[in-house]
């Protein structure tokens, strides 16, 4: 909830928790400009068609894999986890920044979240939807995936609750449910705005149903704000738990390089870092093409870039700590694994990871670069690539270099792996592109909380 605040001294070069939008004058302007972004354009249709084409390539590859068997996917003993598990962890990670921005920053009252949280939240939901596909793609018989869900059955069989795979099912499904609920609840008042402005009777009817008859009464807002707060309070530990649980898939195994207590915080920091990378990849073009620079201001990008820098430093520290653990453990297998990772067989992947995730983000110490959207966009692509390779470096080198030399092997993805990876991007961007032209990509109602309300007696309205 907002209160009309006293004017502050302008500090244009300092990203502040108190958002100020000098170019946004009143509530009507917010309605007009944000609803204006919903008109489809030729560029949008082209992007959507590209996304659907990528998706179809992935679907075709998957059909082929189901027909021919998992062997076409590049699995080769001892590396029996490959691109699908890497991409699963990658997409779950992408899905973390949305809840961080919408829930954790909400609890911390960080004002810069207001302009970017809707976009990040939608990104979260679609990223988790994408991530959820990969464990199913990884199954030899994907139609049996529901065996992981505890449901009453004639054979009285239950899943093994001590298995990290079952933990994953609970964590991911809970995360998907809660994050999509959180997104929808926040959207209801905005859909009511669309309903009230819509002139096409069919669309108006659809919005009326989707807004559930929301009418902005004090009673609705009173319960809404409280419920939103509790959802944020639930989502905060949830977001930290989900990637911790994902990290248990690895940390519970006795494999060198995986069996480490540092994994949960390391994964959570990496997830938030990668998610922030994807937020930049998405929000910077949206800001430009939808002409929303006066909503998503340089101050907002600057503040998000600082978070990105911080999480990069945490991730970098985790990389170095892993080496320190291996060194100080005195365990030869652990030491050999890390040597092989950085100077041996997988050096190329490890150095992509280190350069993209540790070195390049250091540029964000420069305020000039933090406030340069072009650089942030380029950097975000490097971060996305780097974070995919981080998961590659976690999954593949460990399996390819276990205890005994006769167990050692290599791994190379096949065209099926690449096609399905491409398809996952198509799937993700298809949903995202559909979203941004049907529903507001910036929260209309929350923007109105930021803009000072119209007052009869200027200087009044405070409490």
């Amino acid at each position, binding site marked *: 909830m907002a209160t009309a605040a006293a004017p502050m001294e302008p500090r244009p070069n300092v990203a502040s928790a108190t958002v100020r939008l000098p170019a946004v004058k009143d509530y009507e302007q917010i309605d007009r400009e944000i609803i204006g972004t919903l008109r489809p354009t030729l560029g949008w249709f082209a992007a959507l068609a590209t996304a659907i084409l990528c998706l179809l390539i992935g679907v075709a590859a998957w059909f082929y894999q189901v027909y021919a068997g998992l062997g076409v996917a590049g699995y080769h003993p001892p590396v029996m986890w490959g691109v699908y598990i890497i991409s699963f962890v990658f997409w779950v990670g992408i899905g973390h920044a949305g809840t961080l921005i919408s829930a954790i920053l909400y609890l911390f009252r960080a004002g810069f979240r207001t302009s970017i949280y809707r976009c990040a939240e939608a990104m979260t939901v679609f990223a988790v939807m994408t991530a959820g596909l990969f464990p199913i793609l990884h199954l030899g018989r994907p139609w049996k995936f529901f065996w992981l869900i505890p449901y009453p059955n004639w054979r009285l069989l239950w899943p093994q609750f001590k298995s990290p795979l079952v933990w994953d099912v609970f964590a991911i499904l809970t995360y998907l449910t809660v994050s999509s609920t959180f997104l929808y609840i926040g959207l209801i008042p905005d859909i009511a705005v669309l309903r009230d402005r819509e002139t096409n009777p069919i669309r108006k009817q659809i919005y009326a149903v989707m807004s559930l008859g929301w009418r*902005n009464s004090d009673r609705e807002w009173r319960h809404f704000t409280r*419920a939103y707060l509790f959802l944020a309070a639930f989502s905060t530990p949830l977001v930290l738990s989900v990637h911790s649980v994902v990290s248990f898939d690895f940390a519970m195994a006795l494999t060198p390089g995986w069996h480490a207590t540092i994994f949960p915080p390391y994964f959570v920091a990496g997830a938030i870092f990668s998610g922030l990378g994807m937020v930049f990849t998405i929000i910077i073009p949206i800001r430009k093409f939808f002409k929303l620079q006066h909503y998503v201001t340089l101050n907002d990008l600057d503040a998000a870039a600082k978070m990105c820098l911080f999480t990069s430093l945490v991730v970098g520290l985790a990389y170095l700590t892993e080496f320190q653990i291996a060194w100080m453990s005195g365990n030869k297998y652990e030491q050999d694994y890390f040597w092989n990772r950085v100077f041996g067989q997988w050096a190329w992947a490890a150095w992509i990871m280190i350069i993209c995730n540790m070195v390049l983000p250091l540029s964000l110490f420069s305020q000039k670069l933090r406030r340069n959207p072009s650089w942030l966009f380029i950097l975000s692509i490097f971060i996305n690539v780097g974070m995919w390779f981080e998961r590659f470096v976690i999954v593949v080198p460990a399996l390819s270099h276990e205890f005994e030399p006769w167990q050692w092997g290599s791994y190379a993805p096949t065209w099926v792996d690449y096609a399905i990876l491409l398809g996952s991007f198509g799937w993700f961007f298809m949903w995202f592109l559909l979203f941004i032209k049907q529903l507001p990509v910036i929260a209309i109602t929350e923007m109105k909380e930021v803009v000072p309300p*119209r007052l009869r007696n200027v200087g009044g309205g405070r409490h």
Partner: protein
Amino acid sequence: MPGLIGAFHELDATVSAIGELRRSRFNELTVYTPTPRHELEHALEAPPSRVRVFTLIGGLAGASFGYWIAVWTSEYWPLVVGGKAIASWVPYTIFGFEVMVLVGSLSTVFAMFALSRVPRLTMTVGYDPRFSGGHFGIWVATSPERAKEAADLLKKHGAVEVRHES
């Protein structure tokens, strides 16, 4: 109950109108606002939302169910491995936690809907599409005898439009 709706353009005018309406014993007020504002909440002196009760009950029920399903299935079909516990609370905390969040969140949303009377199939009398845009609205439910008094009050505080509805 019949009544009248006043539309306002300014927040402080709305707040002062609410204050005077309440002092004049017009207690059945519904305020429409495009965005939640503390000023309006304070002027209405509404009781705190009871959503939290549902959140607490849902959270506790979810945590209990999460632990229970894992413990019960383990005891029902024991997998005895070495000397390890058949039902182990450490990994089962994951289920307790996740189901607590799931059920707690869903019951919070349910409470929000139930307490706000949402979903609503028909628009309430007095609602105006402007109230999701840039206007604030006050619906005063009153008898026809006091309608004029309420209308005068709304106009006095700067209502841009006052309309009788029933």
